[in-house]
């Protein structure tokens, strides 16, 4: 463990190793490729094993054996190198340090590996093991498993010697040549790329394109709470934040504006003091070239900058050049959660180093075309961005900064008379100051950014295929590909616009079967299950016999447009599979009625939108087709057949046949059938348009800034909902039960009996306080009991006839053996996903991320589970 040459096994990208300060040291890139170069017998494998983890070293011998079972079969070399390149490519894509153990003495073989590293935008080093030929030959001869002759070694040796002259020009970051004596004593360490500053956690104030607008920058820093440090001449030369914040400039400090040197002086001071970071913008890059005397087109405000800088004198000019020339193109901050680059950066380039990464960071993903104003057309990489890191950038002036898939452009065109904008991170708060004047005329008018929730930001890859979703409440949830395929059809053909679809309700398990005579379900089991899980108080909510409905309602069209990205509409009411209730006109009318009905909640919760979990009544409003086709049909058959059978049996009995037992059974089934017919008829009420339609909200899932389903107790929800008085709202009768109080439990049972005797469907029992049921990872026993169920339904005896059939009470012994495990597991996973979707939406996460989670609920619903549960 404490050997001086400790292998760098498992070191995460970005970790540098600290080396003892004696002897020869070699530093290789922590995320990149290392080529071991040396003739056969030079000790490459030994060297690799000593300095790197076994998984980091990919050897050609290993790959040769992999493809043909013989590490010495030279005929297999082309195939072996195909495999080697593939493994190396995958590792580099994943950002893993990789060492290639092959002779690599020929330029061509090195070139293909260097190209592979470039293709993955990582740095590549070579470590040359330069041992005498004779030693290598001797080593080869002593090895039983080698068949390398001295002629071959001699050829390799000549190749190596030739290579050493020009290897440094082959695209390596560094070539480390180790002579015979150094090989055994050298220390190997890693160094991170300069852009990797993940150890910095801020908090940050990321500041958009300044373009020489010093007055606005000073004002903005002041607004953000910074204290400006001035020199004797009153010039700003630094700034400090009392809370220790760090400023991050997205580049384009210079050009066009009134005081480029002033801005540079301030930012250079802050960077030197360690209170700011700065990435290069395209304007700095060009200014550097101009200052270095390169021929550049002097436009876009460059002339003013050169003049202003020249006026500051040679010292300033030199230090400004040094500063700008040293700027790197992007930073990875806060454990990889924040990336800052001037023109943005796609995920595959985060933390990478290459010319094209720098070019992307400075200029964006240009297509090579120019628009009608002569400006380059940029590919909208942000709409395709699916990374978890927040990307903050500038470069393209927009009117208002808008989040697009967890990325944001802060260039609000201060120099064009717009404003100067900063983003407080991690607060995600936007702070802007208006420009004092228009310093420069824009080539094209400032445009709005791509709206974040624009519908085509959803891609097929966001939802299809097998995926694991990480949720806070249900851990990792697997969505199998076939479930996703099934959900895709439902989602794309029947569901409402995904921008509205921020939640889908989970399935709910019934209480365990009751042993009580005549009952399949009874409140006692629900109480017992919760008591055993350590729940102290539950709420029993009347289960309305209607259709589950989620209502997404906004106060006005502006909210719909701004928060949901929907230009024409103010809300939607959809079913548990995401379908709209009613047609277009009636749907709009319902939304409008509900918006006015819940207006008190907009006020009370200080929100412009709400998501409500509800039941839409009556059942027949949505399910009349099902009732007629399924339930009433069976009722009609029973209602006609059983009396006819009774008549025939009566005639037979009259002539003395012994059919008494059969006649008894027919009589009992007649009673059952009539009870069944009454059961479904109780949920049929005439409706005409919206007349007769009622909504029974029982939970306020979310409002601006708050995922209320997670944070608030059911007591709070029901109290809030009780303030609604509009007649379209139906209250949900409920009572609270202290599970340690036998009287309260008995009263609740009686309440349930009365409720169901009067035709009620039953009730739902839920823990009053929100469920936080993440089971301990890896605990096998916990797997059996996946935490506390968010709710258990206890359905009435009569209602169950339409679920289990009219005669189900005659087969209770069989039905009691139902298995609830799968249903409970599903309820748990779907609940976790639903909550996750709400949380993501409330947190302002991109549409794809919310949609992926909602889609997953629908996908899980396609799992086959006994539909009677």
């Amino acid at each position, binding site marked *: 463990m404490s050997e001086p040459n400790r292998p760098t096994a498992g070191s995460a990208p970005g970790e540098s190793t600290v080396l003892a300060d004696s002897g020869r040291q070699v530093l290789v890139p922590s995320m990149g490729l290392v080529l071991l170069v040396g003739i056969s017998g030079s000790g490459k494998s030994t060297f690799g094993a000593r300095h790197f983890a076994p998984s980091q070293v990919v050897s050609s011998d290993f790959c040769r054996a992999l493809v043909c079972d013989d590490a010495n079969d030279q005929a297999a070399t082309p195939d072996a190198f195909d495999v080697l390149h593939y493994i190396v490519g995958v590792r580099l894509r994943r950002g893993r340090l990789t060492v290639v153990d092959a002779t690599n003495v020929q330029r061509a073989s090195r070139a293909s590996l260097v190209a592979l590293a470039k293709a993955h935008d990582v740095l590549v080093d070579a470590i040359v093991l330069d041992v005498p030929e004779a030693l290598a030959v001797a080593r080869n001869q002593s090895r039983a498993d080698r068949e390398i002759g001295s002629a071959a070694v001699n050829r390799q040796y000549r190749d190596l010697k030739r290579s050493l002259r020009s290897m440094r020009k082959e695209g390596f970051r560094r070539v480390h040549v180790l002579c015979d004596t150094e090989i055994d004593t050298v220390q190997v360490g890693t160094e991170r790329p300069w852009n990797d500053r993940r150890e910095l956690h801020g908090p940050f104030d990321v500041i958009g394109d300044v373009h020489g607008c010093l007055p606005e920058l000073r004002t903005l820093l002041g607004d953000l709470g910074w204290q400006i440090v001035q020199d004797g001449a009153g010039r700003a030369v630094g700034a400090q934040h009392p809370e220790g914040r760090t400023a991050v400039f997205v580049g384009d400090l210079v050009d066009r504006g009134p005081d480029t040197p002033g801005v540079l002086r301030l930012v250079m001071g802050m960077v030197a003091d360690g209170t700011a970071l700065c990435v290069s913008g395209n304007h700095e890059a060009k200014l550097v070239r101009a200052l270095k005397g390169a021929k550049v087109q002097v436009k876009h405000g460059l002339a003013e900058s050169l003049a202003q800088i020249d006026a500051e004198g040679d010292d300033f000019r030199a230090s400004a050049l040094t500063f700008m020339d040293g700027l790197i193109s992007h930073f990875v901050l806060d454990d990889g959660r924040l990336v800052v680059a001037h023109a943005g950066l796609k995920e595959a380039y985060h933390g990478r180093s290459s010319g094209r990464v720098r070019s992307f960071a400075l200029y964006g993903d240009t297509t090579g075309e120019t628009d009608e104003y002569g400006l380059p057309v940029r590919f909208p990489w942000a709409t395709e961005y699916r990374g978890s890191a927040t990307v903050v950038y500038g470069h393209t002036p927009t009117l208002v900064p808008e989040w697009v898939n967890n990325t944001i452009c802060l260039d609000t065109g201060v120099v064009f008379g717009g404003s100067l904008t900063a983003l407080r991170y991690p607060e995600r708060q936007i702070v802007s100051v208006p420009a004092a004047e228009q310093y420069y005329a824009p080539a094209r008018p400032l445009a709005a950014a791509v709206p974040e929730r624009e519908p085509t930001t959803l891609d097929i890859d966001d939802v299809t295929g097998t995926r694991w979703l990480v949720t806070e409440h249900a851990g990792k949830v697997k969505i199998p590909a076939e479930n996703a395929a099934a959900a895709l059809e439902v989602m794309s053909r029947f569901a409402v616009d995904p921008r509205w679809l921020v939640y889908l309700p989970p399935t709910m398990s019934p209480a365990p079967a009751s042993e009580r005579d005549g009952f399949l379900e009874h409140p006692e089991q629900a109480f017992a299950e919760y008591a055993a899980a350590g729940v102290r108080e539950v709420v029993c909510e009347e289960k309305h016999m209607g259709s589950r409905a989620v209502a997404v309602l906004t106060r006005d069209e502006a909210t719909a447009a701004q928060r949901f990205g929907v230009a024409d509409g103010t809300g939607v009411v959809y079913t548990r599979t995401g379908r709209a209730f009613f047609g277009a006109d009636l749907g709009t009318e319902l939304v409008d009625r509900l918006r006015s009905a819940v207006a008190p909640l907009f006020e009370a919760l200080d929100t412009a939108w709400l998501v409500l979990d509800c039941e839409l009544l009556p059942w027949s409003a949505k399910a009349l087709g099902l009732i007629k086709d399924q339930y009433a049909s069976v009722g009609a058959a029973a209602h006609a057949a059983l009396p006819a059978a009774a008549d025939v049996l009566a005639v037979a009995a009259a002539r003395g046949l012994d059919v008494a037992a059969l006649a008894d059974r027919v009589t009992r089934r007649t009673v059952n059938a009539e009870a069944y017919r009454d059961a479904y008829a109780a949920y049929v009420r005439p409706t005409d348009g919206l007349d007769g339609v009622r909504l029974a909200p029982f939970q306020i899932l979310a409002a601006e800034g708050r995922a209320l389903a997670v944070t608030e107790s059911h007591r709070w929800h029901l109290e809030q909902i009780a303030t609604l008085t509009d007649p379209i709202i139906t209250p949900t009768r409920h009572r609270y039960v202290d599970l340690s109080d036998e009287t309260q439990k008995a009263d609740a049972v009686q309440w349930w009996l009365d409720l169901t005797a009067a035709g009620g469907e039953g009730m739902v029992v839920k823990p009053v306080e929100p469920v936080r049921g993440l089971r301990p990872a890896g605990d096998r026993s916990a797997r059996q009991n996946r935490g506390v169920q968010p709710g258990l339904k206890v359905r009435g005896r009569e209602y169950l006839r339409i679920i289990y*059939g009219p005669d189900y009470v005659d087969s209770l012994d069989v039905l009691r053996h139902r298995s609830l495990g799968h249903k409970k597991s599903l309820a748990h996973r779907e609940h976790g996903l639903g909550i996750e979707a709400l949380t993501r939406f409330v947190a302002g996460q991109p549409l794809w991320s919310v949609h992926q989670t909602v889609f997953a609920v629908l996908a899980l619903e396609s799992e*086959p589970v006994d539909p009677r549960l």
Partner: protein
Amino acid sequence: MLLTVTTTHRPATDLGYLLFKHPDRVQEFRRSFGTVTVFYPEATDERCTVAVLLEIDPIRLARSVGRGAPDFSLAQYVNDRSYAASSLLGVAVADVFSTARSGRGDDHQALADTPIPLEIAIPVLPCRGGPQIARRVFEPLGWQVEADPIALDDRFDEWGDSRYVRLRLTGTVRLADALNQLHVLLPVMDESKHYWQGNDEVDKLLRSGEGWLVTHPDAELITRRYLGRRSGLTRHALERLAELSDEVAETFEPTDDEEATPPAVGSTGGQDPRFDVVLEAAGKPMIKLVREIVELTDLPLRVVKEQVNCTPSRIVGNVSQVTAERVKEALERCGASVALLERPVSDEARLGSDPSSPDGGELVQPVSIRTDSPDLPLNVQRHRAVLAALLELGARSVVDLGCGSGQFLAMLMAERRWVALPTGGQTKAPWFTRVVGTDVSTRSLQVAARRLRLDRLGERQAERIELLQGALTYTDTRLAGFDAAVLMEVIEHVDPERLPALERVVFGAAHPGAVLVTTPNSEYNPNYEGLTGMRHPDHRFEWTREEFRAWAERVAAEYGYTVELRGIGDLDPDRGTPTQMAVFRHE
């Protein structure tokens, strides 16, 4: 659950002998699905009634069906099997009266062989299609039929009738025939068979149908319904029936669209004289000829029947003499009169540059001359119109968005045209180099894969075709880079408010060189007799020509395309054509 059979033959109690069940006994028979009780509520010389009462164990039924069954539906638990005279009752009757059903009468053989006055009463019979179906099915068998509909729920008058009827049949029929008819026809009325159907179902049907099914005018309907619309079994049964009577099979046409239309018979060579094979008259029996042509051309049955019914018609076009003679011979074996017509071969055609087609290829269609026949089914006309437009555009890579069961893909795969060889010569080669079908339904894609025989295609063919699951409201990089995209009868299945997403996915992100969109013309709808509302229950809208034009022009302008509008199908001078098509070309 209940069925009674009464006779007024004297002495009526002979019914007990014919059924091999004593009139004074109550007999129970336990079966896997429940208990059958046979008893006689009446047994006098004047009138004797036997009652068959089936009590189903619903849980046992649900268990035996539900386990492993793919359609895990609520219907299995709350179902009418316990009350209605379903296929289960048919099985029960056949089972407990199997001796009587065989026509055996022992001491009363003469009576068993004689039609006797019978009255069959079924208080609740599921009767999909309504009482008229019961009449259609039973009346030709000599029954007087009373079929009274049963109300769905007398508490909700506005709901109307249920799918059940109270059925009373009276007639003078041999008892064994009556029982066999019940065995077959109860499931036929019910239309939902309760157990797995194997090939012996066909045997059962033919055995019970002996003597009456072949001559029944609705034999095909009965066969199809009895076998639960399983087309494979139905075809098998009809073939076997056809050996008994040609007429029956001739009326048969597959109801599903799974009939494959794989690559058609092509042609060989370039310099030889080319022939058309023309059917001048079809002999009898027609079915043999139809089948032969289907075999030879792999055309859909519907099209072939069209050809056979409307002689003279070209069966195969532009084939070599050898092929033509082979086809002629085969058709003549089926009793048809056939002529071979040599095609005028111009120099241009020999070189493969038919001046009538824009890009030098010649469209070889081994199909009927009546390509533009208004009598062809609209979907065939639509396919041909879209194919013609693709060829006109010169599109060689095509993605069919919403390909359904792959009919059009099959047509694209079959397309062969003259293509220049690198050596300077000409060859008849597949025109479409890349054919991709997408659909959101995995089931449709499975059907398409079967139709296209994807698992059996050679490598070169397989390289040209691909099926993908995709939804048109999600961008999809796999859809980019095609010469043309086809949206055939697709957009009307998308909610209007989701259309902008489809537009961005297809015209914006996938951005093919051309887009062909077809959709119904709602103005034409009055020409469909009895059509109320839209043409398909899943249509979210149907547009007038003006509405379609407005949409097409806006989309074209927004995404940089030009658009041209065309009609497909019969032209009504006032209402236009049934289908309208927009041809978008990328500028």
